[in-house]
């Protein structure tokens, strides 16, 4: 970069300088794979973080909204996920899965932590009370409102009822499997096994329909 590249730069209140994105770099990154993007983030190239944001921010924010149940916390959490990727890109190992899987796993983990925190507990209990007072179809409808990808919906509905219930309560509502066992009045060991077998069955189903896989 030359000094002339900084033409038009302007000062922000927090000390950053503005300048146009590097078009060559943007074009390159638009076609880059996960590993290349993360290496570029490791080299402090902000266009790489922007490309990751462009590809995955909707899913990250959507999942956070779904689990934590309000937009404000979901925004905080989404911000945290991308800033952490900027600060610690080497936490992502492409040999273990896609960047999308990595980001959504992090998002889910942090969302669940938040839901389990004291501040969120009351809200969750109120929400569960509403769920518990409804029949099983209400949960189906609530889930289906959010699940628009046909194959995922299809795969979920084809799971045995017990597996699907256990997965939904744990994944979308942030309960531990012990809490799920208590909510469903079932043995803990049974719920533990159903979560595992449900995931395995979903994998088979989604692989067949081409959803799974990097």
């Amino acid at each position, binding site marked *: 970069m030359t000094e002339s590249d900084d033409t038009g730069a302007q000062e922000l209140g927090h000390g950053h300088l503005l300048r146009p994105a590097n078009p060559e770099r943007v074009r390159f990154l638009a076609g880059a794979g996960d590993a290349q993007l993360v290496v570029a983030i490791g080299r*402090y190239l902000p266009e790489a973080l922007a490309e990751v944001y462009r590809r995955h921010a909707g899913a990250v924010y959507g999942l956070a909204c779904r689990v934590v149940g309000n937009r404000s916390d979901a925004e905080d959490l989404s911000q945290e996920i991308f800033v952490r990727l900027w600060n610690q890109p080497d936490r992502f190992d492409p040999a273990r899965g896609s960047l999308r899987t990595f980001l959504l796993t992090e998002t889910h*983990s942090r969302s669940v932590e938040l839901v389990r925190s004291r501040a969120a507990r009351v809200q969750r209990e109120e929400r569960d009370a509403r769920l518990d007072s409804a029949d099983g179809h209400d949960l189906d409808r609530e889930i289906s409102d959010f699940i628009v990808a046909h194959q995922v919906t299809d795969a979920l509905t084809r799971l045995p009822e017990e597996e699907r219930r256990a997965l939904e309560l744990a994944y979308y509502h942030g309960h531990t499997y012990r809490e799920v066992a208590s909510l469903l009045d079932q043995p803990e060991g049974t719920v533990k096994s159903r979560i595992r077998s449900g995931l395995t069955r979903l994998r088979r189903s989604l692989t067949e329909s081409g959803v799974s896989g990097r």
Partner: protein
Amino acid sequence: MTIPSEHREVEELLGAYAIHALGDGERVVVERHLETCSTCRREVDAHFEIAAALALGQAVDAPPPGLWDRIVVALPPDGTAAPRADGTRPTVPGPLRGWRSPRRVAAVGVAAAAVATICVLAVSLAGTDQQLSQARQDLRSPVAAFRHALAVPGHRTAMLRTSTGTDVAEIVVDPGGRGYLLASRMPVLAQGRTFQLWAVVHGRPISIGLFGNHPAAIAFDLGSASATTLAVTVEPAGGTQTPTSPLLASGTL
């Protein structure tokens, strides 16, 4: 070594672990087990992927306006990364081939679909033997090793490019001949096929290694070979002594 009874107990917890449905006590037990059990790591990685598919199955709205701006403002103001817990900063790798070295910090908040316009501070790369050693030792994460190698003075890079001009992988080789490849657009091969990397020395291809049918990041040893050209072919699993198929991609160090 993992005790079989422990393996069986932990195995039952892997699904719940992958969707963050364990209490702290059991989570710690699983994580300790995962450090030594590759079978369970593979299962957990598969569960993570399915959990992500569940997340992606939900309605995905555009993130709210202003979220990107909030992220930009939260980045360290000097354009680098926040210090780690021990106070050190992550190693700063060198520029990718063909890109200009970033020299100034800048940041900007733009609309969600637009691209960021921050540029970053130049960081002088102090090459040390320690960095080289770190790059070599950090094989647990090839991406991290790739980054470390980029920071070593005297490293060489190559972009593997198809005859139609598509970049499929990037390579960095440290001065000691240790190389790392990051795949970006390598196709997924059928079972029974593998990618094979070749170095062209004095006009003849020398096999550098096999890297499976769906590589993401790998390490290899170029040794003292005076190669300036690297190439990839698709071969039967197990590899061949000389290329049996046309070059998929090649690049110059």
